[in-house]
């Protein structure tokens, strides 16, 4: 697993929500895939009227610009909102975290050994050019091409950032990644609408990979190795088409009248304004001249806007599938204090999480364990440590540190992370621990985390790559990740946990698997590698006329589900 993928994955509490990439590489055993029963419904959100009104134009504004429109390389928050307008992947999620088919006509079937995945694609799905004309029908060959393209090391100007992290489990992918072959032997076209993917080892999470935008199907003749060219003229099977894009200003998407899903798209036009200051954008949403605030509600206006009764039905928020935590170096060299379980457990009791959440305007929920809400396996009853400053101090003394010790907290420079580190510093001081704060630019900070034992305490966050509990264990709390270049900030390695996690990953989906992950979570928390702090809420605001908008646990913004409310 390469470090750039991980770098983007280990995001901070400031939550630059990205479609971050990383994947565990624990070997897995056969697992039956879930069978999606709901209609290929990206549009199947909870709060929709029976007949969704069609037509109209909505506008969004973001502070940052698009990086890419090519799904093979697109890797950012703004980009994902746009790419999901223009492209479809074989699978997607319902309004929650359940996998459902999209371009696939049904949920893929998995062989008994879990290594062969057969995807049946819909017929009658067309690639549509930006002028609205049909290019041709999509076939299985296009999916084969698209997956091989993501693995292609010769993509220009840069290869896909997730190729090795997400797709290296495919048989023959190493040859493509190494430039020895153009196509992976494990990606096979069976017939015009059927593709088989062979894996080196069974892995249930590959279904989640098939739902990422990296698995979106692109037309062979237009999407070449030159991603920059495809960025300028992206063509897919999605409900909207890119009509125009002026860098640094705006991108205009128009309805794809030949879209394969009946009743979609809902809107005539979607205008993305980029490079707009978040405070200015908020004012426009308040005034009703802008429909959706792309970024979160700016800190300075947060309380005023979220408590104003006139905006009550315009504020949209949801807890992100992320956990912000204070990691402690469980294997601190030279018999360091943090290497002692009793010391770490005392610190678990000494951090006032409610106070820390206040610095975030209370936008979120206090974290008591590892898995966040919405993550399958989330266990609200998991709460092994409670805040008690006096007990924490006493326990620290009992652990052999009656007068505390000196240590260092590392965090990044993005607000409000330094302020949260300062709050942690205060709590530690109350226990007698003197902590110095070091703030570093995010890239440097990740370098520090990845350097063995460079940072005794780290305030950082982890955002899901995909909704599977393995994603919160394998990349950040496994022995394999406790290596130089790994993202295991606590340098935590418990062989027993590793064995159980590998077994759980191999299990068939279902309640037993989740129960096993909950048991693993409890075992890890007993070792106290982290003080889980909070799960942050994403808060944004829409105009009164926007319907069908929700903060999606995976996509964040699913603009293809948005429509204009009747009568507005």
């Amino acid at each position: 697993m390469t470090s750039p993928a991980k770098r983007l994955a280990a995001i901070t509490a400031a939550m630059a929500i990205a479609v971050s990439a990383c994947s565990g590489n624990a070997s897995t055993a056969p697992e039956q895939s879930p069978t999606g029963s709901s209609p290929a419904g990206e549009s199947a959100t909870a709060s929709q009227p029976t007949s969704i009104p069609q037509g109209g134009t909505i506008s969004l504004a973001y502070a940052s610009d698009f990086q890419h429109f090519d799904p093979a390389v697109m890797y950012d928050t703004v980009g994902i909102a746009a790419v999901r307008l223009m492209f479809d992947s074989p699978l997607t999620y319902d309004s929650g975290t359940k996998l459902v088919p999209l371009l696939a006509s049904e949920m893929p079937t998995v062989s008994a050994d879990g290594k062969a995945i057969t995807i049946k694609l819909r017929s009658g799905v067309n690639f549509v050019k930006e002028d609205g004309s049909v290019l041709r029908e999509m076939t299985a060959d296009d999916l084969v091409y698209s997956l091989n393209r993501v693995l292609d090391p010769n993509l220009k100007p840069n290869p896909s950032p997730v190729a090795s992290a997400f797709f290296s489990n495919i048989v023959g992918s190493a040859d493509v990644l190494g430039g020895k072959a153009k196509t992976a032997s494990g990606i096979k076209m069976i017939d015009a609408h059927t593709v088989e993917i062979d894996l080196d080892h069974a892995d249930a999470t590959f279904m989640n990979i098939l739902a990422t935008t990296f698995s979106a199907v692109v037309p062979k003749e237009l999407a070449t190795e030159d991603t920059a060219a495809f960025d300028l003229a992206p063509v897919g099977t999605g409900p909207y088409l890119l009509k125009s894009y002026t860098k640094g200003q705006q991108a205009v998407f128009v309805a794809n009248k030949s879209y394969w899903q009946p009743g979609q798209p809902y809107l005539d036009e979607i205008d993305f304004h980029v490079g707009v200051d978040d405070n200015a954008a908020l004012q426009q949403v308040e005034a009703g001249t802008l429909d959706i605030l792309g970024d979160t509600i700016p800190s300075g206006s947060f309380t005023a806007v979220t408590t104003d009764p006139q905006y009550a039905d315009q504020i949209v928020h949801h807890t992100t599938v992320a956990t912000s935590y204070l990691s402690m170096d469980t294997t601190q060299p030279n018999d360091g204090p943090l290497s002692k379980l009793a010391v770490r457990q005392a610190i678990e009791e000494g951090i006032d999480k409610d106070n820390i959440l206040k610095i975030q305007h209370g936008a979120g929920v206090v974290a008591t364990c590892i898995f966040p809400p919405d993550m399958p396996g989330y266990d609200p009853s998991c709460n092994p440590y409670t805040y008690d400053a006096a007990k924490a101090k006493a326990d620290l003394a009992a652990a052999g540190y009656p007068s505390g010790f000196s240590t260092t907290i590392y965090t990044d420079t993005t607000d409000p992370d330094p302020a949260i580190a300062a709050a942690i510093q205060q709590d530690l001081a109350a226990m007698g621990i003197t902590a110095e704060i070091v703030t570093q630019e995010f890239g440097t900070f990740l370098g520090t985390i990845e350097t063995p034992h460079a940072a005794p305490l780290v305030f950082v966050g982890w955002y899901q790559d995909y909704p599977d509990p393995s994603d919160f264990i394998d990349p950040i709390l496994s022995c394999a990740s406790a290596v130089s270049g790994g993202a295991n900030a606590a340098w935590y390695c418990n062989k027993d946990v590793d064995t159980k996690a590998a077994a759980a990953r191999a299990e068939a989906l279902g309640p037993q698997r989740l129960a096993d992950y909950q048991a693993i979570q409890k075992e890890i928390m007993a070792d106290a590698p982290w003080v889980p702090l909070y799960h942050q809420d994403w808060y944004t605001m829409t105009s009164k006329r926007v319907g069908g908008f929700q903060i999606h646990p995976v996509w964040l913004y699913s603009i293809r589900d948005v429509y204009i409310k009747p009568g507005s």
Partner: protein
Amino acid sequence: MIPYLIRRLGWGLVVLVGVMLITFLLTYVIPADPARMIAGANASPTDVAAIRRSLGLDRPFLEQLATYVANVLHGDFGFSYHQHRAVLPLLLERFPATAQLALAGLAIEVAIGLPLGILAATRRGGFWDRGATMVTVVLVSAPSFWVGYLLLEVVFQGHQSYGIDILPLGGGYKPFDLRYLFLPALTLGFGGAAYYNRLMRATMLDELHRDYVRTARAKGLQERAVLWRHALRNAIGPVLIQVGLDLGFFLGGVVIVEQVFSWPGIGKLAVDSIVTADVPLIIGTVLFGTLCIVTANLFVDILNAVTDPRIRF
């Protein structure tokens, strides 16, 4: 001397009180309800009303003002809405970072500016003078946010292209670590160096044209002695005054440089407080900055009065 001191102190106080009044008015101008900000988004109206009462926000304006002034005089600068802590400890916590940057920046200003200024004055019209003038114009014209980002970019490219890994990328802070301090201090120093160069050149030229210099030269004194022992000693006065004033200014917070390098000092705190509409913290940082400047002014005036016999009260 004593009446002069009292007068100066009095004016310093007037400035402080004036700033205090203006900043206090901010609470009424900024569209943020302090009680609501403290209570948080999820608090009930009853809780908000209770906080409003406990803060005395329901009392008449003048009464609130009086309470505020009394609190400030007792060292109580209020309570940060956003960070949920008292303002004064927050300021004091950030002060060491700003002090490090201020001293280092000042040292670089002086280390670059003075030699260039002396060189330019003694070789007036020559290569060094023109060169120094040119450098000065460039440095004065370059805004510090631009210089800061440029330096960060140079370090970044050095790292990406040549693997040079001496300075931290993208700024940041580690207490008393020179690697972190170097770039912010250099950025701060560059702008000021140009100013010191000009000042030093002007005062030095002024002195070099005076009669005592001509007399010294006529006596056959070596040029080095004329420069260093006589002219520079007299020319350095205004420069020292400037150093004192700058120090006061910097200690109050170096807003732009701290922001560019994510340097957690008073200046960054001021920016953060404005971004989050954290009124008590805005007032606190402004008052703290004013206090630093007023103190520095006072200190420099006194020093000047004591050391320069030409000054009469």
